[in-house]
């Protein structure tokens, strides 16, 4: 059931993202910047809120009058700020809910990712509390309605002695101190929200908390335009002797309020409880899949720290050396944070397939899919290639080539592929060209795999792809899981391009140990036994 919902949502997201990718490009696509835009809107709300506070007056009459004053008499700055405050808050809700749905659709909430998912839950509660307290401050008819229904909901809980809602049904029961309390709430709750937002991203490395400048500029310009087009206004002063039959409701912040009339207060609380419990438990609902965490092999770790640099989940840290090797530090994996993407193995300088060791062991590796197995599968798959252009595809499990069978070696993430493997494939004449096919741009399942791969190939990030490797024989394809035909078309076009190229000059014979790999594992071991560990030649 959950799987089906997720599949439908994912399809929906990918269909929407494609035209956005076309118009914005992957790096500016707002759907791939939801978290960063959420932060951006928070800061817009914070700055505009501070500005509005200069004009706001706490008091039963003065609250409404001050809001009217800044809206009407000073519409060109304070009024615009009010609209920015309102619409940025609304957009923050949109970003948070879309972000939630997208992370669910892309299965980004289980395993080590449970922490970010779980801490997202209080963000939703705090965001709504911030918004609702904001609506009270205006003290217009909508504020009256919000005050009554909110307090009726709170009164349903067996906490308060006297119904709080009684304060809002007749004059004389409410004092100006109430507004002081609400101002305090409206400042304190967003501050707690900001703290939880920080906790939310604390376990991931290089979180995107700022959208690209271009996107931020366009967003701010559009916000200002909307604020001028439809300024946020009050809905008339509160008359406690009257009920407002018609209200312009903010359906983003107050969708549950009409439900109080339909379901009753108990029904709404039951819904909120069920929603929160279900959301909170989702990371642990079956099917539980968790690959074994990466493992460090100290004999092959020189403490260079590249794995720490590249890990997208802060799962690795450098600690003091515990063995006799002459290096000050060694890598240490925190299994509870590791998602087994293999990016660390791809970053390790020991992960070179050129090594003629008895059994290829690297500094940090995946127990269920070691670099040794990746080399074996690459060599084995290369033997099936034929034709004028032998193209080998190295595909991640989450991109457009995820379901590919022929000519393809699969990896959890393309950044698990050490650049030396590309060199190995081409120099050992295992293929005429290599396609690295990953998730669509800026939407890497493992967050940074696509970026790291591009940077390694471009020589901007360790470990570099050697300069001797002919770049025209390498292609990167960044497509979503749904874009199968686009992926196939890219691979076909690359194959045609390779067929037209003259024979590659970078050729060196396959060492005997690797040749034997093709003949079977038993023979490999036998052959490897004759060749004791040698220093890596890459």
């Amino acid at each position, binding site marked *: 059931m959950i799987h089906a919902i997720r599949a439908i949502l994912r399809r929906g997201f990918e269909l929407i993202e494609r035209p*956005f990718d076309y*118009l*914005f490009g992957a790096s*500016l696509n*707002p759907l791939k910047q939801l978290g960063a835009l959420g932060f951006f809107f928070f800061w817009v709300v914070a700055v505009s809120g501070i500005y509005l506070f200069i004009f706001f007056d706490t008091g039963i009459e003065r609250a409404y009058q001050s809001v009217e004053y800044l809206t009407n008499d000073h519409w060109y700055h304070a009024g615009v700020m009010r609209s920015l405050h*309102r*619409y940025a808050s*609304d*957009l923050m809700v*949109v970003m948070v809910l879309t972000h939630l749905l997208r992370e669910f659709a892309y299965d980004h909430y289980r395993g080590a990712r449970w922490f970010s998912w779980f801490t997202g839950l209080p963000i939703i509660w705090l965001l709504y509390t911030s918004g609702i307290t904001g609506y009270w401050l205006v003290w217009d008819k909508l504020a009256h*309605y919000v005050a009554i229904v909110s307090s*009726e909901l709170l*009164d349903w809980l067996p906490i308060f*002695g*006297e*119904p709080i*809602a*009684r304060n809002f*049904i*007749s004059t004389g029961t409410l004092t100006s101190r109430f507004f002081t309390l609400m101002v305090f709430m409206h400042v304190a709750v967003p501050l707690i929200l900001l703290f939880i937002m920080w906790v939310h991203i604390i376990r991931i490395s290089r979180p995107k908390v700022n959208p690209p400048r*271009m996107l931020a500029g*366009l*967003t701010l*310009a*559009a*916000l200002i*335009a*909307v604020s001028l*087009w*439809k300024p*946020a206004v009050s809905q008339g002063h509160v008359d*406690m*002797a*009257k*009920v*407002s*039959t*018609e*209200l*312009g*409701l*903010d*359906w*983003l912040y107050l969708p549950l*309020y*009409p439900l109080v*009339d339909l379901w009753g207060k108990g029904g709404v609380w039951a819904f909120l409880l069920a929603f929160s419990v279900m959301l909170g438990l989702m990371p642990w609902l079956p099917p539980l899949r968790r690959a074994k965490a990466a493992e460090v092999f100290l004999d092959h770790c020189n403490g260079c720290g590249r794995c720490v640099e590249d890990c997208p989940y802060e799962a690795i840290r450098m600690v003091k050396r515990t063995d006799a090797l002459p290096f000050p530090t060694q890598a240490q994996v925190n299994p509870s944070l590791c998602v087994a993407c293999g990016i660390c193995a791809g970053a390790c300088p020991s992960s070179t397939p050129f090594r003629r060791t008895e059994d290829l062991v690297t500094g940090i590796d995946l127990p269920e899919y070691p670099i040794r197995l990746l080399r074996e599968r690459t060599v084995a798959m290369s033997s099936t290639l034929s034709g004028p252009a032998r193209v080998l595809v190295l595909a991640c499990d989450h991109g457009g080539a995820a379901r590919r069978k022929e000519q393809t070696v699969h990896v959890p993430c393309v950044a698990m592929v050490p650049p030396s493997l590309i060199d190995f494939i081409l120099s050992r004449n295992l293929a005429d060209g290599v396609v690295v096919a990953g998730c669509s741009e800026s939407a890497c399942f493992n967050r940074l795999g696509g970026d790291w791969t591009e940077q390694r190939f471009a020589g901007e990030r360790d470990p570099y792809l050697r300069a001797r490797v002919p770049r025209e024989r390498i292609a990167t394809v960044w497509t979503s899981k749904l874009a199968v035909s686009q992926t196939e078309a890219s691979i076909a076009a690359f194959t045609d391009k390779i067929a037209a190229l003259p024979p590659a000059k970078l050729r060196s014979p396959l060492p005997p140990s690797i040749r034997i790999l093709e003949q079977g594992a038993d023979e490999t071991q036998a052959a490897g036994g004759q060749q004791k560990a040698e220093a890596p030649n890459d």
Partner: protein
Amino acid sequence: MTNPLRTAGQFVVILALFMAVAAFSNWPVYRQNPQGSAVVMLTFVHGADRQAECRRLTPAEIAKLPPNMRRVQECPRGRRSLEVELDIGGKTVYRASLPPSGIAGDGPSKVYERFVWPAGEYDIAVRMRDSPRREGFDYMRSEHVKLAPDQLLVIDFNPQGREFVFR
């Protein structure tokens, strides 16, 4: 597409999305109550009499108590339930036995009920019993009220004056 055109296209798309969000921030209008209706709200907080009268302890009972806790009479903490009725236009719309609040049942009873009613003229009567009596009510008030559309009529109980208040 040239860069300025592309940027303009991006802006238009973002603007359209934000306009939709801004519209949804006020629209569609929500109608809480039917047009031409008023709300009668019965709400008050009042503690009923204790469940039993205070009883003078016998000398033997006093002697049994620890010296620092000796007292001459015993008063049970628990309160009775309030019996409340409300009639609108000759029809009883609310009849309830309201238990006391608090874990020990010694707090006041509370009521907060809302009745959406078509605007018009009505006889409204409210009755409450807070004593041990079994029949009749201790407090009553009846009024002929003209309910205007959107009016909120609050029926409260003034504990100082010990009377119902219509406002």
